[in-house]
């Protein structure tokens, strides 16, 4: 397994798409191979999380932005998260169909991901490390929605983009305790619909109220994704924010946090794997089993041995 990932990563470094796709699959399937990833961030990708209510046009908008990026001779990856059926565990991943034109370009990579874990994707930092290794200029993380489920994506990203549409009325209210708080940039999509100007006005008023707090007021842009209107301005705003955050140190701080999470993720999965191995080694003791306490102590002793082994070996395992 680790051999496989090593070979695939070599391919990713040489910008082989097939290796990239298979490396991402391997990490999804066996999260604990993440410890083989290079620890330092090799690439220069600007990572943008994109949240917004279902139907806001996130995928269509991203398809357009991706096309705009290729026109500037840069490359982009989109990880598009879609919900998983709570009943079957299956998923219908329908974001790609909105970006097919852009996805044909050699500088665009689109990957659909079933948002399997309720907390987002625990393996996300590892996936990002692989995309970074490939050398993408931009990485977009398209969230399922704009609520709690978007948070892991937002925390892993350099910038948070919120897509809203006119006519949802109360959505602004419901978003107040969510993405709106940490959005770096707001895009009002489908701005050819009635109510767009009012939404911009309401949002501007909302942010004026917060003007004294530490969070900077996000720029508010208007687009019509299906027509490709306003796309250049979105890309320019992203680039500008990235540069401003880089200059002020915000970017570095966010990346440090993301790196910490990757490191924690790697350690957590390795520890959990060991615990699982030992726990699966025999049935649970019955109620009132006099041996239960002994067995539990034995388990802890074995865990201590295994962790000690890990401590002794981790220096030369990398």
């Amino acid at each position: 397994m680790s051999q496989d990932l090593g070979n695939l990563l070599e391919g990713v470094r040489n910008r082989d798409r097939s290796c990239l796709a298979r490396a991402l699959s391997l990490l999804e399937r066996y999260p604990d191979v993440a410890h083989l990833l290079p620890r330092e961030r090799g690439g220069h990708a600007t990572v943008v999380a994109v949240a917004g209510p279902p139907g806001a046009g996130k995928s269509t908008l991203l398809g357009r932005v991706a096309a705009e990026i290729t026109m500037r001779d840069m490359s982009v990856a989109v990880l598009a998260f879609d919900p998983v059926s709570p009943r079957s565990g299956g998923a219908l991943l329908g974001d790609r169909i909105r970006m097919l034109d852009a996805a044909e370009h050699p500088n665009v990579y689109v990957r659909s991901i079933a948002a399997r874990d309720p907390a987002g994707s625990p393996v996300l930092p590892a996936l990002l490390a692989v995309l970074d290794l490939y050398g993408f200029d931009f990485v977009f993380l398209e969230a399922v929605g704009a609520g709690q489920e978007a948070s892991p994506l937002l925390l892993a990203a350099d910038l948070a983009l919120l897509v809203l549409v006119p006519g949802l009325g109360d959505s602004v209210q419901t978003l107040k305790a969510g993405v709106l708080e940490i959005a770096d940039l707001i895009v009002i999509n489908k701005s050819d619909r009635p109510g767009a100007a009012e939404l911009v006005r309401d949002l501007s008023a909302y942010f004026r109220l917060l003007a004294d707090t530490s969070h900077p007021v996000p720029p508010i842009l208007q687009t019509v994704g299906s027509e490709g209107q306003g796309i250049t301005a979105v890309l320019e705003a992203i680039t500008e924010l990235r540069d401003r955050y880089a200059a002020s140190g915000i970017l570095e701080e966010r990346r440090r946090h993301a790196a910490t999470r990757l490191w924690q993720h790697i350690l957590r999965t390795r520890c959990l794997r060991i615990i699982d191995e030992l726990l699966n080694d025999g049935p649970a003791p019955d109620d009132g089993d006099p041996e239960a306490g002994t067995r539990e102590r034995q388990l802890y002793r074995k865990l201590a041995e295994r962790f000690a082994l890990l401590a002794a070996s981790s220096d030369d395992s990398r």
Partner: protein
Amino acid sequence: MRRPIRVLIAKPGLDGHDRGAKVLARALRDAGMEVIYTGLFQTPETIARSAVDEDVDVVGLSILSGAHNQLVPEVVRALRSAGKEDALVLVGGIIPEEDIPFLKAQGVAEVFGPGTPLSEIIRFIETHVGEPVRGA
């Protein structure tokens, strides 16, 4: 840990009927698979590109136009030249009996005609996914 089976459902060529493809996409989702649906009017190159990028285990082609003898070899060729040789290729649609041997010789694992029970397609995928691809 087993990853769910990933399936690409696409319609190459020019016929505009995607009802069957959508019904199948839903049925596979309900069977626990991850289905990437790319819809109508796909070129063989786009299909191959999607199959590589999404790292799917199965490529399902729905063809009702009668152009299967033309389209299927093109898709299989595009998949191979894109380095996607490990995917199970399935064809659904209105395919005359006498064309099936030719399609299978091209590397198609199975052909499902109208009225095939969805459960049969699901069972076929679950049984044959990951098998080496036949054909030239």
